């Protein structure tokens, strides 16, 4: 009877296409929005992931995210180092400073100052030059992605991307581009410039508190959670693992920017509208078929077989809609990602889409079965339709 069920389903092309399209649209909306949301989330903590090497990030307890400039006193470094279980600890400066580009334009930049001696906390990948080039006079590293976009040089009337050897002023300190690095796209957009910790301090206006973060490594065999707790007790500062710091950052940005609520609403609306529309379409389709189901019941199709037929019909449009919808989301996502938009589909997201479609199918299937199963086969003798 699966054959009969499918022929009943596909007989009316227009309705069949409409059903599949409705479900595909629901799947597309849910997976596409979820992927963009996931893309944003991923970018929010990209810098933390890109900064390898350390087990713990120590910072002011009121720090809300990676670019939140709440500083701590530099004696914290010594106190962290003296906590049992800490293998090493290095300072890191991070702050917004204003840069004057060679063409006279002002540009806010994020300066990251990494430990002079160990160079821990540097960018994930060098494109031109080496990390050690930071030891050179007035050296800074710039991001490949900013060249030609935010970091532009005008030379005898023509504009060209900044390159190694160019000079710029950061907070009235002349610096020189010594290398180019690459990192993953971030939620924040100001150019990030790496230099050494001591040079960063010279650029930044003098303050009593200078440090942004202390990066610490836990001694092999020591319990990271316990060491973090000991650091918190000894310094009164916050000590997070990279993942914890990532979550602090993501939650804060999601709530503050309304990204969570906005995407939440969009995804929920897509979900609800998709479910409602396609469940309704499926349901009306089933109701239109009720005379046919009634005749089949009279002719000896058991309720069990009717359930199977409806399941075949619903799962057929469901899987087609899911495939088309998620396929469209993947293709569309490829285009979005090329346009540098945050789109990141992980394997869990199609599962969400599948869940949405499954709910559509279940709702529509159960609603229509409730009608079709209660159908008296005797209706087949009621007048012509």
């Amino acid at each position, binding site marked *: 009877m699966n054959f009969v069920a499918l*022929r009943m389903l596909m007989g009316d092309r227009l309705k069949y296409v409409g059903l599949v399209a409705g479900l595909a649209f629901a799947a597309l909306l849910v997976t596409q929005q979820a992927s963009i949301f996931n893309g944003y989330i991923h970018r929010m903590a990209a810098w933390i992931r890109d900064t390898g090497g350390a087990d713990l990030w120590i910072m002011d307890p009121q720090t809300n995210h990676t670019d939140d400039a709440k500083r701590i006193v530099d004696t914290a470094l010594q106190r962290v180092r003296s906590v049992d279980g800490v293998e090493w600890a290095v300072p890191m400066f991070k702050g917004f400073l204003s840069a004057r580009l060679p063409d006279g334009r002002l540009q806010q930049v994020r300066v990251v100052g990494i430990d002079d001696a160990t160079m821990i906390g540097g960018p994930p990948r060098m494109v031109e030059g080496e990390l050690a080039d930071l030891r050179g006079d007035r050296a800074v590293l710039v991001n490949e992605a900013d060249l030609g976009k935010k970091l532009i040089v005008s030379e005898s009337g023509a504009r060209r991307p900044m390159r190694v050897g160019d000079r710029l002023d950061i907070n009235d300190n002349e610096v020189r581009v010594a290398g180019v690095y690459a990192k993953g796209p971030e939620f924040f957009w100001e150019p990030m410039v790496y230099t050494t910790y001591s040079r960063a301090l010279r650029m930044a206006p003098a303050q009593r508190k200078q440090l942004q973060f202390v990066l610490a490594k836990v001694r092999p065999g020591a319990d990271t959670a316990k060491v973090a707790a000991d650091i918190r007790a000894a310094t009164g500062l916050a000590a997070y693992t990279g993942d914890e710091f990532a979550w602090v950052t993501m939650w804060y940005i999601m709530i503050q920017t309304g990204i969570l609520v906005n995407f939440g609403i969009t995804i929920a609306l897509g979900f609800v509208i998709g479910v409602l529309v396609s469940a309704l379409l499926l349901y009306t389709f089933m109701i239109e078929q009720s005379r046919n189901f009634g005749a089949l019941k009279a002719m*000896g199709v058991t309720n069990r077989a009717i359930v199977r037929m409806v399941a075949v019909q619903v799962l057929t449009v469901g899987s087609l809609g899911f495939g088309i919808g998620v396929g469209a989301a993947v293709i569309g996502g490829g285009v979005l990602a090329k346009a540098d938009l945050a789109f990141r589909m992980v394997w869990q997201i199609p599962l969400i889409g599948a869940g949405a479609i499954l709910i559509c199918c279940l709702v529509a299937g159960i609603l229509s079965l409730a009608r079709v199963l209660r159908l008296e086969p005797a209706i*087949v*003798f009621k007048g012509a339709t």
Partner: protein
Amino acid sequence: MSTVNLAAGQPTADTRSAAVRCRAVTKSYGKGDTMVTALRGVDLDIAKGELMMLVGPSGCGKTTLISVIAGILDRDGGECSVFDNDFAGMSQRRKTLWRGQNVGFVFQAFNLLPTLTAAENVAVPLMILGQSRHAAVKKARDTLAMVGLGDRTHSLPSQLSGGQQQRVAIARALIHEPKLIVCDEPTSALDHETGHIIMRLLKNVALSQERALVIVTHDARIFGFADRIAKMDDGHIEKIVTSPKDLE
């Protein structure tokens, strides 16, 4: 016809050859103020090999009676056995399976599945009984040829005339060789001539010694095809006659 019984209320004594045997069957719809009693104690015997017509004014209970006989409606009281089978006490599922084996339906509105071809429609009862589509459709083509539609096996119902659709429906009611065929107003949607073609098919092809046919109709022009005619009024069998002339 060994056990034709002419008088209502005096059913035949020979129950072995009875296809349908109803005694004091009652049925009402709804409850309380809105209750409608459709059958008020129906006694009716139909013999094997017999074509029985049910006639009577609108609302007298004809459709209700054949629904009870065909096992798609539960009676409230009385006795009713169909080929020695009693639906009372059978589960819904067993009733459904029994219908699939033993009953063929012809509906006034044809009730063909609009998206299946003629052959596929005719094949449905065999597929319900678990036959493969291939085997079922193959047999359906032969059955369609029997009703004179061997050349229209691939047509959709919408591409067929009313008379042709009803012939497809008859083929569908025959293909699984059921013991009982019930028809509700099989000719009322058809013109006179087509109605006669349909009735000839039912009489000559559908009827056999092991099978009984019950046909509900208003259509006086086809009364002549009946072996007996049961005239109903207000939930009773008023009289059973062998000749249409005796109806008045």
